[in-house]
């Protein structure tokens, strides 16, 4: 498995953000990680990216343990956070070059050109982050993640700040990378995106995994029968936020 998470627990002081979380993501899979605010999605992704150390449990990337062999694991990872963290003094092209150096990208110039065109950053190669809009900065972060051949891609709210064309391209990029064999984990509140793109969905609530499967699988679960086959309804039902109708409303 490209991503393997076993009984992951992450605490902040006395607060447990993620508890007893286990799942796997195989090559070519796109798994959606969804849940209400504070469910532990971002903590999970940040732990998978090597930013946070697990309090307990094991995380491995392509068989490399993130704690005992962090360099090998991180070499295979690309994390695209929701908030674009960029160095204010490096241009777009320099960000890509820095990443290429750190991850040893062989044909950097060709890749960079292609990516800059694909993400509509042409003409912005020499711009500093301060001169870019939020959407553009988000694209730079995505470009930095895609400039190398990562076998595991982690997206945290990948569409934040993107325009409709950018959203369309991002969706295509995610599916294309999965077809090329990457394991992809996407955290998003945009359930229609998750439903459209993801091959599987993991639903988290209060730090725990409460559901894991395809939308079709979840729809057939006995306790979710009332929700139908719509991911939004399933999500509301499973997280205990399903609308309560009165008898009259149900009749109507």
């Amino acid at each position, binding site marked *: 498995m490209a991503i393997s998470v076993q009984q992951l627990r992450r605490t902040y002081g006395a607060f447990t953000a993620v508890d007893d979380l286990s799942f796997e993501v195989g090559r070519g899979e796109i798994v959606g990680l969804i849940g209400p605010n504070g469910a532990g999605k971002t903590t999970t992704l940040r732990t998978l990216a090597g930013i946070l150390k697990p309090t307990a449990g094991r995380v491995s990337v392509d068989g490399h343990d993130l704690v005992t062999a962090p360099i090998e694991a991180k070499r295979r990872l690309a994390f695209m956070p929701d908030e674009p963290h960029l160095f204010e*003094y490096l241009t777009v092209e320099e960000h890509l070059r820095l990443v290429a150096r750190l991850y040893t990208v062989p044909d950097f110039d060709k890749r960079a050109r292609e990516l800059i065109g694909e993400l509509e950053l042409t003409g912005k190669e020499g711009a500093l982050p301060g001169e870019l809009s939020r959407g553009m900065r988000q694209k730079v972060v995505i470009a930095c993640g895609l400039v190398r051949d990562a076998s595991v891609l982690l997206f945290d709210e990948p569409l934040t700040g993107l325009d409709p064309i950018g959203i369309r391209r991002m969706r295509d990029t995610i599916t294309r990378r999965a077809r090329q064999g990457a394991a992809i984990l996407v955290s998003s509140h945009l359930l229609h995106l998750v439903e459209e793109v993801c091959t599987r969905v993991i639903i988290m609530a209060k730090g725990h995994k409460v559901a894991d499967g395809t939308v079709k699988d979840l729809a057939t679960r006995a306790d979710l029968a009332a929700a139908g086959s719509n991911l939004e309804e399933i999500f509301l039902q499973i997280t205990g936020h399903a609308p309560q109708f009165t008898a009259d409303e149900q009749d109507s």
Partner: protein
Amino acid sequence: MVGATAYIMWCSAKNRVRRRLRRLREPRYLIGAIFGVAYLFFAVYGRMAPRRPSSSRSASPGARRAQSVVATMTASAPALGGLALLVAAAVSWLMPFGSGLLEFTQAETAFLFPAPIPRRSLLFYRLMRSQWAVFFGALVMSLAYPIATISARTRGLLSVWLLLMTAHVFFTGVTLSRPQLRRRSEHSQLLARVAVAVVFGALAVVLTAVARHLWDQPILNLTDAYKVISGVVATGVPHLVLVPFIAVVRPLFADGWLSFAKALGPAIAVYLITIAWVLRADEAFGTITEKLTDARGSQPSQRRARYQARSVGWDLALTGRAETPFMWKGALQTFRVVDRRVLIRVGIMIVWLTVVVSLFGRARGLAQALGLLATGAAIFATIIGPQVMRVDMRQDLQHLEVLKTWPVRAAAVVRGEMLWPAMVVTMVAWVCGAVGIVLSAATFSGASLSLRIAGGLAALILAPAFVVAQFTIHNTAALMFPAWVPLGMSRPRGVDAMGQRLFMLGATWLMLIFVVAPGAIAGGIVWFAFRRLIGAWILIPAAMVCTTVIALEVLMATEALGPAYERLDLSSVDRGE
């Protein structure tokens, strides 16, 4: 607006106090608070008790001399204070810094800018909000004054408060007027140019008079310089042009309530004129606040440096050592943050400093003065440089989330982060030190040639070791105690934060002694064993041994820091405000 301002001030103060008290539950803040309170007690509260100067009869001859110097200085102090203010006013036009009064937080931008209130009210709001900080500063300064009665301290408090407020408002006016100097609007441009002409005209008058005196009568020491300058500014045209500046500082030197009341009127008049000048720059205020709104909308709340994309002639190779990308990153940060205008202004200041040194050094020789200046600068760079140049982990903690995703060994990250700033500081120390060695014949004329050259070269060899050792200590502190390290350009506030800074400063110096000690002992052994054989030249191999030992220690320390880097999680660190 007054009600809204009062409400925001009250709520902010209440919540700040509550938050600071709550964070005392964490040991690091508690320790910081204990240090801070202890410092305040000994440095400030200890001076609260009124102390009278001892009578001339019972005082020692040294004390009597000191009293007579103080008495002489008090007579000419308002004029000298006025001159200092004038110089500060002129420098504020040259330095590229903005006024804190115009720095709105993201919340202020979001809530107040769209509100149906005139832009001038925003300035009023900021003025009101800055009162507490200015008052606190004035309070500390008045308490720190060594010999004073309670009523003198009260007068001092009021005087310093007024002085700081006037300076605050004046600086805001400068920030607003600076961009207007090149604008097309005739009114605002004229207003800005008149202000510049007044300040620099007055400065030119005073400096010309001072320079003429210094040229006629070369000075030997600081007392001479003091006498010449105080003589020049106390009479004639220089005194006349200094009148508004003297008016602002005069209440500070009043020796009773009556003279204080007399001095207060002109000082308040200058304050009001300054406010009127700032409010007249309404057009500029509109433009600047609009710019601020745009900038703040896309930037985090922390204050950030401004960068300009320009080539620095270093393209990062796609293969090589893991530390190199960090050095490259640091180099780009350094060269891009430097504004060409800053360089011009720094150039002007260097020329000015050279002129001053030449005038002061005429009696003893320019070479000696420049030699001393260069030697002092080299020592300053070696000791203070690592504290000032923070282009390392201390600044990159704010990018920790990115750094930690990179497949780079923790030790390489730490070393890479330190290499560039250490190189810059070392280069500055080396250049200044080399000038010092060249001019050492004039500066240290009593020492032999071999001692001067060997000593100078030994110092140059030791400089990088001292610099790198200090960077290692600072970066270790950043990784071990991230909550105590200011992120980016922000500075934590509060008594506990002040205590933490004091604690860190002391700990840093103590650590430096521990880090340097093994190298110093090894170098000392070499020096002791061979000094009779090769004389002063032994200093060079001794310095090399010392530097090698320190370099090995630094290497081991960076390797040992790996686990701390891996463990570091800023999200669990309460950074306070």
